[in-house]
């Protein structure tokens, strides 16, 4: 597989402050790559450099064989950008916005009109196309914001936190359309601070914090790299003593740890599923009733916690 984007030691400083601190990664053609990181991690700054808006302090990025610093115009023809903050003319209608931006990307005539219709369909705003954007809900505006980035069918689409602050319905529509676009062959660089989105969408994930790329790989690779155990959570009845159960479970060979909080026992094991049957047997022996069971696989949240010692969302 071929890399469509290669980033090498990219640095951006604002005065003394280093917003992006020497990050390197590649994105393969046809991939959805997520940059996951908390507020201020440097995601937007990275995208701004890759989309030729900011000039990097040092380092280099190449998109489709063109340097972002030396051949910005060639790069701009390959990329689409969905900025974190809405970038629309609110006094124009959705259709007028699409028409204007399409023309700025060099589309015109029949091609443009056809693309506008397709995009309106894609973002689910055919009915509202004639209304001014300022009359739209937040979610609808976000969808137009995305639509603008799709018009010229970019090879590589940058989406900077496209789901921030919107209703679940719009979010679902956006996530689904990202997957659909990817199926049609578009490569996507997606930034988010929602672990779930990164998990749902991405082939590979880069975790950013304080301007640095602190981990990079598929989800499986990342979680393995952390060596996180799975967690089995047993909810016991009100009248039962969870501490007794915990003591009993600690004697099992596979159990590394068993903690009690309120009426639950959290058991750390390499494989939660395998531990379930023995744990239930022990509980029965003790006459303790188990109400329900949860199993947690290791997730990116845990990876982030492990690497930085802090939660992804504060």
């Amino acid at each position, binding site marked *: 597989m071929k890399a469509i984007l290669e980033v090498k030691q990219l640095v951006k400083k604002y005065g003394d402050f280093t917003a992006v601190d020497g990050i390197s990664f590649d994105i393969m053609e046809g991939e959805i790559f997520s940059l996951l990181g908390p507020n201020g991690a440097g995601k937007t700054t990275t995208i701004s450099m890759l989309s030729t808006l900011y000039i990097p302090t040092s380092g280099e990025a190449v998109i489709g064989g063109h340097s972002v610093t030396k051949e910005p115009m060639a790069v701009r023809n390959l990329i689409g*950008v969905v900025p974190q903050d809405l970038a629309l003319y609110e006094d124009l209608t959705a259709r007028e916005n699409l028409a204007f931006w399409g023309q700025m*990307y060099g589309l015109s005539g029949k091609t443009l009109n056809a693309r506008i219709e397709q995009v309106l369909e894609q973002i689910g705003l055919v009915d509202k196309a004639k209304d001014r954007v300022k009359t739209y809900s937040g979610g609808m505006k976000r969808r137009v914001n995305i639509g603008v980035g799709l018009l010229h069918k970019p090879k590589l689409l940058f989406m900077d936190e496209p789901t921030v602050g919107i209703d679940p319905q719009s979010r679902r529509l956006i996530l689904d359309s990202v997957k659909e676009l990817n199926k049609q062959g578009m490569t996507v660089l997606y930034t988010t601070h929602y672990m779930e989105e990164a998990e749902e969408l991405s082939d590979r994930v880069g975790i950013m914090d304080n301007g640095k790329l602190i981990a990079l790989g598929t989800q499986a690779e990342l979680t393995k790299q952390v060596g996180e155990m799975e967690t089995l959570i047993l909810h016991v009845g009100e009248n039962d003593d969870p501490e007794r159960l915990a003591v009993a479970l600690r004697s099992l060979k596979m159990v590394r740890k068993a903690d009690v909080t309120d009426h639950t026992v959290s058991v750390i094991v390499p494989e939660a599923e395998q531990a379930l049957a023995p744990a239930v047997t022990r509980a029965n022996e003790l006459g303790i009733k188990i109400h329900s069971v949860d199993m947690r696989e290791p997730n990116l949240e845990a990876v982030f916690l492990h690497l930085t010692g802090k939660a992804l969302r504060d």
Partner: protein
Amino acid sequence: MKKIYNIIWKDTILRFSSLSELLFFLILPLIFTFILAGGTGTQNADNRIRLLVVDQAQSPLSAQIIAELAKSATVRPDVLTLSKAESEFQARNASVLLVIPADCDSQTLRTAAIVLDLRQMPDNLNAQAAQRAVQAVLYRLGSAVSIAKNAVTEAEKLRSFASELDRQAYFDTALASAQSLMNSAPDRENVVMGGTIDPIQYDPRANSSAGQMITWVFIPLIGISGAFAYERQRGTLRRLLTSPTGKGTYLLGTILGNVLWSLVQMTLLVSFGALILKVHWANNPAALAVMMTTSALAAAALGTMLGTFVKTEAQASGLSIMLGMVMALLGGCWYPLELFPAVVQNLVKVLPTTWAMQGMLDILLRGQGVIGILPVAGVLLAFAAVFFVIGILRFKYE
């Protein structure tokens, strides 16, 4: 090119998406022009300043002075008896009164100066203008007289005159030919004499039509700064600069669109001035086109430069209204510059509005053509160049 057209189109929709824009584009300028012009004009009305004249000499020379005054674009001589003229003046029916003394004839003139008596209302703009007009006429006659005097002296060196009558006859002939020479070259005289004798010509309709046009065209053009702030605040500028559209295309489209709209606006206001107020905008259409374009470019450039200093759209719109008004006031668009002290008159030459107004009045009141207004147009273009260079060099997406 297509992109530039699209940018202009987008700006046009945005601009006129609120009806209040029409208020600034046409309604307010028309109302102000109309009010300050003092109502409508009629095609044949003589709106020159009434100048009471008392001719005590009844000589060919005094008749000549009156005839010259009658040709003036500024004053309309009204010859009356002394008592009648004085009562008119007392009644404030006229702001200036000129008494031509009995000794005003070419005989006295050949040997001595003649003192004319000009009375005027204090602090009266029309009176000041009339005074300048009278001075200009006398200056022209005076120059002719001194030429004629010289002619007599020179002639006397070559031959002696048979009699005093002969000498007077020779003087009169020389005076007449000097006058006709000067009359046939009025432009040269204006240029050579420059500001010192250039008569102020004040015509409320022309001044209002030109002044209000400049005021209301400068305000939205300075407001280009607001368009830049708007695009920066909305993030659309950042988005544009990640598209294959260059910064140059964006700037050109935005500026060109605004300049074109200002030309439309000016054409409408000029039509109003010409048709309703009977202002002589049709004097020289080519010169008018040059003045409109260069004024618009200077204002647009100022807006472009300010656009790199303002932070928000609100700031920009406040600033452009304030700056546009102040510059128009100081530039003589609301009151004639001649009302200001000389120092101020020189200071305000740093404002493009001053030059724009001067150029417009050159066309309207001083009958200048393209060549005549070229220096003014040149100054406006220089303003445009300086402001554009600063603006474009400083231009940023955030």
